């Protein structure tokens, strides 16, 4: 192996930095005895910062070209760099929000930090996957960490039960995904998406029996993706896990893994099986409509905020799928950049909104008193006006009210659907988002027009409060000036 070949592997530098950093963090944390885990926390943030810079370095060095390393198992393109940068920012914010909450409850253990970093490594592997094998292994790495994170609060029966459900259903979904992959591998004889793409096109055209086999494999692959996204009818785990896990872990599950699930859908369907777009787009239509309907309707009936946000996740994933399913119209990909770009924009904005909404819940939770029921929101404005205002921004954005970023994200996705000629789908999406606006606005009403239920305790402060302000204002800014992020997303999609 020549030196140039060896150096080409440096395109995986962010992963290498993160792996080395996470291993080092395990050992650093052993040495730290303090309850606040100050050293481990700063170390983890440092690792994230270095990995972020490493990604920027790889990005600037690649000059917009695409590279395959590790015998094609790893792809390095603009899409992967952008998603990785998002993931680093998200996990860094998760750490800031979760730390005071976990510390107050005595749950801030070194394992939380290490498992979070390893989960992030799994996300990075998925984002850069160019093969069934690396995609699946990244997925297992991510979900294994998440199961453990949910169960980490082991004295809570609800958390243990949630972890159990998550694990069993997750194993089932992995099985479905692997089964589908094995069928496609059987038909094409390759694990690499770059080979499978052209192979499936030729096979699907050549014989109808091959096409049937491929479509069967596709069904299972789509089921696996839908499970990881939490799209109806593979959504059963989402409410229970969001509800049962401690709010800090819900924050972890509800944010960065969505980026990975988006990357997984994009790599598998758009990179790997573009020849079957007609088939998977139809499947995604069903998933999207059911998710938007059930997510928005069930969320109205919830009295628990975490459960409500869980159903809201389901509906938002349905919206995101709208973008993915309108890329190819009648066999040509003219609409692809707009549609997939809109889906990516939607995912990024959703992660930001979810980060903010759960961040507010974490900040408003006090020692011994969780803030997770709707009643806990009552009179929030009188207790803590600034926090209430930030929650208002999040709720407006989630509901898709202009001028928030959530509005523009919905607008971009729906216009992609209209361009694809699926007018009825666009009408349905608008109707369901109107239904959804009800339960988001109910939270706002409780905060501003109802009297506080208990004793008014102002929420905590510190760096989490500052970051939450930035988070809320960023949503406002992105709503007013969405072009920059949208251009970035579209450029990333073009690199695909």
């Amino acid at each position: 192996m020549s030196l140039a070949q060896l150096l080409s592997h440096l395109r995986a530098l962010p992963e290498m930095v993160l792996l080395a950093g996470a291993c080092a963090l395990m050992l650093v944390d052993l040495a730290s005895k303090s309850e606040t885990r100050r050293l481990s926390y700063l170390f983890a943030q440092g690792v994230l910062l270095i990995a972020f810079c490493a990604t920027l370095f790889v990005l600037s060095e690649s000059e917009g070209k695409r590279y395959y390393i590790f015998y094609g198992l790893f792809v390095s393109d603009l899409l992967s760099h952008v998603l990785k940068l998002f993931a680093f920012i998200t996990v860094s914010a998760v750490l800031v929000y979760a730390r005071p909450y976990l510390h107050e409850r005595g749950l801030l253990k070194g394992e939380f930090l290490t498992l979070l970093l390893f989960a992030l490594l799994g996300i990075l592997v998925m984002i850069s996957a160019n093969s069934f094998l690396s995609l699946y292994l990244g997925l297992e790495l991510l979900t294994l960490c998440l199961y453990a994170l949910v169960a980490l609060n082991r004295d809570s029966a609800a958390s243990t039960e949630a972890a159990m459900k998550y694990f069993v259903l997750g194993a089932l979904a992995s099985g479905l995904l692997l089964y589908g992959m094995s069928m496609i591998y059987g038909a094409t004889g390759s694990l690499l998406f770059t080979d499978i793409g052209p192979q499936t096109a030729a096979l699907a055209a050549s014989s109808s029996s091959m096409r049937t086999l491929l479509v069967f494999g596709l069904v299972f692959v789509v089921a696996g993706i839908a499970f990881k996204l939490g799209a109806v009818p593979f959504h059963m785990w989402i409410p229970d896990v969001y509800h049962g896990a401690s709010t800090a872990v819900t924050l972890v599950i509800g944010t960065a893994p969505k980026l990975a699930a988006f990357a997984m859908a994009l790599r598998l369907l758009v990179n790997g099986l573009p020849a079957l777009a007609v088939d998977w787009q139809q499947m995604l239509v069903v998933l999207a409509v059911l998710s938007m309907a059930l997510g928005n309707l069930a969320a109205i009936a919830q009295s628990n905020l975490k459960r409500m946000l869980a159903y809201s996740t389901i509906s938002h994933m349905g919206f995101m799928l709208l973008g993915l399913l309108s890329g190819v119209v009648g066999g040509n990909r003219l609409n692809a950049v707009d549609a997939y770009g809109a889906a990516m924009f939607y995912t990024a904005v959703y992660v930001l909104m979810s980060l903010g909404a759960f961040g507010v819940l974490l900040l408003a939770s006090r020692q011994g008193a969780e803030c997770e029921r709707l009643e806990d929101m009552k009179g929030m404005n009188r207790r803590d006006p600034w926090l209430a205002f930030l929650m208002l921004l999040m709720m407006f954005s989630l509901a898709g009210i202009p001028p928030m970023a959530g509005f523009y994200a919905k607008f971009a996705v729906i216009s992609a659907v209209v361009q694809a000629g699926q007018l009825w789908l666009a009408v349905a999406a608008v109707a369901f988002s109107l239904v959804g606006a009800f339960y988001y606005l109910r939270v706002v009403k409780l905060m501003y027009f109802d009297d506080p239920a208990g004793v008014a305790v102002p929420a905590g402060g510190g760096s989490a409060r500052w970051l939450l302000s930035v988070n809320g204002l960023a949503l406002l800014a992105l709503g007013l000036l969405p072009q920059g992020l949208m251009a970035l997303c579209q450029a990333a999609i073009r690199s695909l």
Partner: protein
Amino acid sequence: MLAEYFPILLFILVGLAIGVAPMLLGRLLGPNRPDPEKLSPYECGFEAFEDARMKFDVRYYLVAILFILFDLEIAFLFPWAVALNDIGMAGFLAMMLFLGILVVGFAYEWAKGALEWE
């Protein structure tokens, strides 16, 4: 190629025979007059109070899981050892990295006290 395994088969057969033969001989040559009282379990002259089986401590579980993990690691060493001549330095370093990652895990569990039995 299968012929290479013939000694192992022979070994298993001889081992089995050596194990079974004394029991068989004892059964055939010794006196054997059981009655229900002789065969019933006893406990110092009393009827048995409870089942002889008792619940294992959950700590065994951790030991067993850690054992499985390192056992899997060994399973990866076999093809590596067989193919080492073909895969060269890169393959050697790949395994060293693999082992290095697991050594970190070993150091962690050791320092964490997971191997201690209070």
